[in-house]
C-alpha cells in the first residue's frame, strides 16, 4: 500500500491513463492482426467472386458427369440377356435420343429406359412383374439433369466395329456412348467428356475370333 502510494506520487503509475484511449500495445496488436489477415486473404478476397463462380460451374459439370456415368454404368452393368426368342422380353433397342433394355434389380427383371426429353436426361424403370407392391420400392422415373445441350447416344457394333446412331439388332451392342454439353449460367456451353460404358452381357468372345 505504501509502495503504491509512493509510486503514484512519483508519477510512475497514472490512475487517469485508462481514460486517454488505446495503449500503444493494443493498437500495434490490432494493426498487426488486421494487416496479417488482409495479407493472407487478399488474393482470395480480390478474386473471390470469380473463383466462386468458376468453382461452382466446374463442380456442377463434374457432378452431372459423375451422375450420368454412374447411372448408365448401373443400368448397363446389370443388363439382362433374355435367353429365349418368343418376344416376351424385348432385347436392347436404341435410338439417338434413347435406349431401353431389360435389367436385373433387387425387384427382379425390370425394363430400364434412358431417354432425352428436350434438355432433360431421364431414367425410367418398369417392372416385368405386375406385383404393385414391388414397384413402390423404387422410383419409376428420375430426371438425371435438365441442362443438356445436343445430347445423343451411339452404339458400337462389336461385329463390324462401327458406331451406329440406332440399334435394333437381336444381339447387344458392345459399347454405349453418350455425348452432350452443359449450358452454364453465363450462357457458355461446356462439353462433357464422352461417357462410354461397355455391355458385358451377351458378348461372344474367344481366342480365335
Amino acid at each position: 500500500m505504501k509502495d503504491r502510494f509512493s509510486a503514484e506520487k512519483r508519477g510512475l503509475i497514472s490512475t487517469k491513463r485508462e481514460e486517454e484511449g488505446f495503449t500503444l500495445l493494443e493498437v500495434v496488436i490490432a494493426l498487426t492482426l488486421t494487416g496479417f489477415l488482409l495479407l493472407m486473404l487478399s488474393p482470395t478476397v480480390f478474386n473471390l467472386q470469380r473463383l466462386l463462380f468458376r468453382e461452382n460451374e466446374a463442380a456442377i459439370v463434374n457432378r452431372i458427369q459423375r451422375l450420368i456415368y454412374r447411372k448408365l454404368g448401373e443400368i448397363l452393368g446389370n443388363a439382362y440377356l433374355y435367353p429365349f426368342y418368343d418376344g416376351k422380353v424385348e432385347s436392347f433397342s436404341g435410338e439417338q435420343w434413347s435406349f431401353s433394355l431389360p435389367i436385373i434389380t433387387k425387384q427382379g427383371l425390370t425394363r430400364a429406359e434412358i431417354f432425352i426429353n428436350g434438355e432433360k436426361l431421364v431414367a425410367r424403370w418398369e417392372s416385368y412383374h405386375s406385383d404393385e407392391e414391388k414397384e413402390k420400392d423404387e422410383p419409376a422415373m428420375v430426371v438425371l439433369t435438365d441442362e443438356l445441350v445436343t445430347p445423343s447416344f451411339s452404339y458400337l457394333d462389336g461385329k463390324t466395329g462401327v458406331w451406329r446412331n440406332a440399334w435394333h439388332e437381336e444381339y447387344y451392342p458392345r459399347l454405349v456412348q453418350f455425348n452432350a454439353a452443359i449450358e452454364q449460367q453465363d450462357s457458355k456451353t461446356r462439353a462433357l467428356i464422352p461417357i462410354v460404358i461397355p455391355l458385358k452381357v451377351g458378348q461372344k468372345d474367344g481366342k480365335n475370333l
Partner: protein
Amino acid sequence: MSKESNQEQGSALVFIFGFCLLLGAVLSFFADSVNLKKNLRAKFEREVSLKQSAENLTELAISHILNKTTAYDAPEHFRITPNRINTFLSADYQATVEIRDEGSRFNPNNLPISYWQEYFHNSPQSYERLYAWSFRQENQAGNLSTTIRNNYLLTLEDLQEVLAETPAPSSLTIFGPANYYLIDGEVLVSLLLRSGLQMSSVAIETTIENFNSNRNQIFTENIATLLSQLHLPELPKLDKIEQLLTAKGSINPNFIEPAYLRLLVPEGKGRDFSDLSLLQKEQPFISITAFEDYLCNQHGISISREKIARLFSVKSKVFGIYVSIYNQDKQGLLELNTIVQRGWAEQEDSWQIIYRRENWLSGKKESDD
C-alpha cells in the same frame, strides 16, 4: 468521461477478434465446401476403382478356366490363390473369387415335373410354389394353370422368391441349355415355343404325345436329326433351338450333387453316393470311362457308356464366377456374380457372358459416410 472511457477499454481487440471470427467462419465454410467436393470425387474414384477390380477378377477367373490344359474340370482346378487375387487389388481391400460349375446343378427350368417331384420330395412346399410359378397363366387371373410351363425362372431373384430362400440354394441353377435326353414332351414344346415357333393347341398335344411315346429311341448329338423324327408341323430355327436344347452331355460328374445324380441314374435311386464328394475333391473323374467304372464298381450300377456320354461330360460348360470385395474390417463392398457359357459355336476356347449382376453392399455406404 472517465466512465465512458473505461467502457471502451480494449474495444479494438474485441473488434479484431470479431473480425477474425467472421473471417474464420467464411474460411471454414469454403474449406467445408472444398472438402465436400474432394470427398465426393474420392468416393466416385473409389467406386470406379472397386468396379474395375471386380471386372479384372472376373476376367482373371475366365482366363483361369479357359487356360486349363487338362481334359477334365474338377473343383481343384477352380481355385485361384489369394496371392494372385491380391495382385488385382489395392492394399485397402480384400476379395474372394469363387468359380462354380452351374451346368451340373439341378435346373427346374429344363427338367420335367416328375424330376421336380422327386427332387423336392422333402420340401413339398417348394415344389408347389415352383409349379404355381411356372404354370401360372399370363394374365394371372384366377388360379387356372397352363398345360405347358409358361413362366420360366429368369433371374436368381426369381429363384429366391419362388423357393422363399435367400440366397437361393447352391444346388440349383436356372442357367444353361436343356438336355434332350432329360426332357419330356411338355418341356420340349415349351422350348419350341421359346425358340419362337408358333404351334396350335392340336400340334402341341400331338408333339407331346409323339415325343413321350418315342422318347430315347434315337441317339444322336444332332438336334436337327432328333427334331426331324418328331414330325413337327414346322421346324424351329436351328440356330435358336440349339441355344436352348443340346443333345451332348454337359453335366460334370466332378461337380454333381448326390441328390441330382440319384435322379439321373435310374438304378441309383435309394443310394446315397456318400463317397462322391470326397472323390470329387481328391480323385476327380478324369474321363467318362472313369465315371462309368465308379458307378459300376463302387455302386454296381451298370449303365452303357453311350447313355452316360449323352448326359455327362468331364468338361464343364456353364460356369458361375462370384467375386466379392470387402474392406479390412470384412465389410462387404461389392459383389459381382457372372455366369459364363463356354464353347458356343463349337469352339472350346470361346465364351459368352449370359448373366451378370452387380450388387453394392452396405459396407460401401458405411465407408462412404
